């Protein structure tokens, strides 16, 4: 049996009277790519924020990388990377300055940061962009860079909240190659997305609707179960509000 690096039991998150996460239960195993699907407002972002220690659960038992999300959020933060839908590198810093900053925050040695910066720029064909401001980069490049920065410190888990929003298909493809590469290095990838073709790339997917997880399995099994040709069909069948 594979080891669970994320374990969620009876997770509830309420904002006043509104229940954003309603009794979530799931596990994510080491090294897998776990897709988190759902319509807008289904509660994906709320869940991902709780898992990464940005938001405290109302109740339930959430363990990430061996630490309790309610009691030890700062311990969790040492072991994860995070990239959110709202682009969040510093736009008024250059590519290299951003990498240096986050490398430094995660406690990497200066020489190591330099080494990884070179490697990263090389790999992304970014060499000439090293001293450019983030604000001068096209969105696709920024997203790729943000992902690279999120895994710079080789975390156990990386959380990606709609990482490919608004990006062209070619860049999305490249982005997913990067995700596969990270997973190949043993980094667990937890990713939310709107794109159903991307869901096909995941090892397992869960589908959320109105704060609940309504389906969770491998894409192949889900398609079989719902007699559908694609994940998109599955999604339309079960995630449409009012269908469950």
């Amino acid at each position, binding site marked *: 049996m594979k080891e669970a690096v994320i374990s969620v039991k009876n997770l509830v998150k309420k904002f006043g009277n509104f229940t954003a996460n309603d009794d979530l239960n799931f596990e994510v195993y080491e090294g897998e790519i776990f897709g988190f699907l759902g319509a807008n407002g289904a509660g994906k972002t709320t869940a991902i924020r709780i898992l*990464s220690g940005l938001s405290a659960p109302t109740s339930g038992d959430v363990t990430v990388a061996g630490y309790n999300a309610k009691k030890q959020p*700062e311990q969790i933060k040492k072991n994860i990377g995070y990239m959110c839908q709202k682009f969040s590198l*510093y736009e*008024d*810093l250059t590519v290299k300055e951003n990498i240096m900053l986050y490398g*430094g*925050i995660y406690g990497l040695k200066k020489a190591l940061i330099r080494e990884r910066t070179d490697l990263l720029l090389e790999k992304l064909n970014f060499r000439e962009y090293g001293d450019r401001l983030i604000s001068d980069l096209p969105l696709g490049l920024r997203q790729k860079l943000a992902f690279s920065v999120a895994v710079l410190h080789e975390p156990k888990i990386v959380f990606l909240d709609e990482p490919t929003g608004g990006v062209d298909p070619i860049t999305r493809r490249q982005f997913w190659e990067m995700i596969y590469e990270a997973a190949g290095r043993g980094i667990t990838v937890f990713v939310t997305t709107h794109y159903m073709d991307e869901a096909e790339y995941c090892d397992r997917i869960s589908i959320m609707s109105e704060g609940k997880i309504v389906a969770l399995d491998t894409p192949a099994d889900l398609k079989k179960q719902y007699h559908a040709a694609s994940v998109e069909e599955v999604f339309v069948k079960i995630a449409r509000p009012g269908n469950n």
Partner: protein
Amino acid sequence: MRTIFYLIRKEFIQIFRDKFIGKAIFGVPIVQMLILVPAVTFEIKNVRLCIIDRDMTTESRELVNQLEGSTFFKVTFSTFSEQEANNLLHKGKCDLVLQIPMGFGKETGNGNPVRIMVSANAINAVNAQLSWAYLNGVIRDYNRNIMAENTSGGTLPPVPQVQVTSRYWYNELLNYKYYMLPGVLGILVLAIGFILAGLNLVKEKESGTIEQINVTPVKKVHFIIAKMVPFLIIGLIDLAVGLIIGKLAFNIPFEGSIAILFLGSAIFLVAVLGLALFISTFSSTQQQFMFTAFFFIIVFILMSGIFTPLESMPAWAQKFDLINPAAYVMRINRMVMLKGSTFQDISTEIYSLMLIAIVFTALAIWRYRKTA
């Protein structure tokens, strides 16, 4: 610990990459010093006087001459109609009306007391009070003269009287620039630190970059300190710029130790930055922060004692000033610069300010949430 270094470096790069802020940091102190120091003054010159001389004797002429002879007064009108004089006062054409009654010369010649009447436009209470005081001074001199005249020629022995000779310590010439400048230095440091630091943090909230910081293991203390250090340094550089301008443009005296002045301002800045960051944790937009900051800055400055002495404020205001960092820095700046106070002389102020700085900074660290 090393993370602080990376964070501070990032702040500095961002501050100086912003072309406007980079210039404003040095432009603001220069402009502020050159404008505020000479402009904010209580000195009164050329008080416009309207004279109603019903006596028209040599004695009354002499009093008017003496008034005119002083640099404070200028007789702009002369009339016999009280109504016209009041009209002039109403319309703001003159500041003071002086009525010399009939028989003024005769009575004073006989050594009898005489009443003259003064009406002042007190819309500006400070102005009215000061010109009133100046007028009193001139009349006192006049009194002394006639007393001397009355006694010298007569048989009466000279009247012994107490004469006051005044000497204004620490600012002998009562130069208001000397009085205002140390205070303006405090305002300068206050405004720059408060606004820049607070806006900086709120901007990170608005752009969402703070999320990316919050999801890292960075310690709250480190983050807040890294937000303070650059503005502490900038504030002290501005203080130095202000002092240099004070010396070059106004030749301000500097009696005390520069090190103590900087020590006081450094602690003051920590208090100000702590409060600014504390407030910015409540604000989600730059507007919200600016509105709140404006409130605090105005209250701090007006209650700091820069314009009005602390001692003349009501008791509750004096109590408030116990937690007003600007009130301490006003005293420290003035005492060190004009009086040459040593550390021992102002240790109470320094320690109180230190306590405030610690409390405000602790509040900012406590209120900053990495996990909502």
